[in-house]
């Protein structure tokens, strides 16, 4: 599903942030992506989200070399990938329900067709009573659950999460991790970037450790 071959990445004329990445991730797997701050975790996720192109090497997603994709093909592929950001990135003027439904609106689905599903998913993540709340009145945990719901509402094949527990307390972190684990059980491939060792130790998933731009697999 995901294959990196000799991938390198640099910004402008700077040093390589990522170097010689060679790995393959099978469908339906769950990987932690970890490493010290500045090690390139977010850059690696952006490569996977196709918001960055590697400066060398080849990234293959769903069996296709991403360097050969035009803009429209890239957007089509991105619809199979969900993303959860540490800072949530919910749109402030939209309600919880509208934020979560955004990927479906983008696909052109009418509100009548998705409203029930979005409500059901929000119930599932514990936001059934907060459908009409704006992000400004949601707690950090609620925002993160809404962001997760938005990332999975269109049933992506791959779910990327960049420090999704960075702004919540340890107890909620564990609960969110269980949520990701449940999503993984339904077949979604998950790559979750975190540097919280307690979380890594709580779940038996393999780890991708980035150090100085290079990656090692553990577990």
């Amino acid at each position, binding site marked *: 599903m995901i294959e990196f071959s000799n991938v390198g990445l640099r910004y402008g004329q700077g040093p390589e942030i990522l170097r010689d990445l060679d790995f393959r991730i099978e469908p339906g797997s769950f990987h932690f992506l970890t490493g010290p701050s500045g090690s390139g975790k977010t850059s690696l996720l952006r490569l996977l*989200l196709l*918001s960055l192109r590697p400066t060398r090497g080849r990234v293959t997603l769903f069996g296709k070399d991403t360097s050969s994709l035009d*803009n*429209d093909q890239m*957007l*089509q592929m*991105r*619809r199979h*990938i969900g*993303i959860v950001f540490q800072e949530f*990135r919910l*749109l402030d*003027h*939209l*309600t919880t*329900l*509208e934020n979560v*439904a*955004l*990927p479906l*609106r*983008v*696909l052109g689905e009418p*509100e009548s067709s998705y*409203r*029930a*599903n979005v*409500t*059901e*998913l929000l*119930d*599932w*993540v*514990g936001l059934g009573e907060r*459908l*009409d709340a704006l992000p400004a009145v949601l707690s950090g945990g609620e925002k993160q*659950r809404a962001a997760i719901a*938005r990332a999975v509402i*269109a049933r992506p094949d791959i779910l990327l999460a960049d420090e999704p527990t960075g702004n919540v307390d340890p107890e909620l972190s564990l*609960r969110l991790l*269980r*949520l990701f*684990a*449940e*999503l993984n*059980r*339904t077949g979604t491939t998950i790559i979750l970037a975190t540097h919280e060792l307690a979380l890594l130790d709580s779940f038996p998933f393999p780890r991708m450790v980035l150090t100085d731009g290079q990656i090692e697999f553990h577990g």
Partner: protein
Amino acid sequence: MAEFTLPRFTGFTGFSGFNSRDRAAAIVPERSVTGRTLVLLIAIMTFLMGVTLGGVVLVQKSAIAWSSDVGREVTIQIRPVQGEVMESNLRTAVALAQATPGVAGARALTLEESEKLLEPWLGSGLDLSAIDIPRLVVVELADPAEADIAKLERDLAAVKGASLDTHAAWRQQLNVMAGTIVASGLLVLALIVIATVLAIIFATRGTMSSNREIVDVLHFIGASNSFIAGEFQGRFLTIGFRGGIIGGIGALVFFFLIGFTAGAMVPQEAGQQLGILFGRFALGWDGMFGILAVVPVIAAVTAITSRLTVRRFLQTTS
């Protein structure tokens, strides 16, 4: 959040929809677009376009009406010639004119009428009986296009001192003047459209920069550039319509007030004469329709310009 069983999206929720919005909110929030300033700017531009267009219509209408009036008449001038009897020549000229195809009627101005024509230059109360003054025959044409002016000119060669004035030079000058004003008006319209387009481009760029977060999120969830451009275009179309309607109504009110004020300030008789010379300040239905047609045009210009600007912005940033 105690249960972790992913829903199967059966559609059943028990959700009643209470307290929720009737329609999903716009993805691009209204307040995030530089709305009021742009509405005002478009209103001013539409007003200027409406006033210019209305002015062009007024000038054109007046020129056509005046040219048509002048074109329906030709004048035979008979200069006094030694040994010729003026009254006899006048009768001959009238008879020749009446015999010409396309002529509705011909009438020689009386001596008093001729003297009155000289009053603006010579003053009133003068005794002109001692002076031989040229006399005029006014020839009204039934149809200027059908009238055989060349034949009349040939026939008048038999009358000593007679010459024919078709007012062609006046009409030509009037047409040139009106054409210049119309062309200038159209140039001003084009410049206003260009200025409007430039202002919308700057406003759209500003809006895109201030809504960068929305654009990024939409890109991350797989929205196409055309979807994002459509969302912004919808906002700008609304702004274009608002500004256009305000400016269009303003222009119509302006012409109504000008017409009303001119009618109230100028005495009725003088007003009629001015109307004959310079046309009336009445736009007519076609003029009003022209001004109202500016509204959808300016709205479309706003929407299309913003869409193209957004697409260009997205192509360079995505």
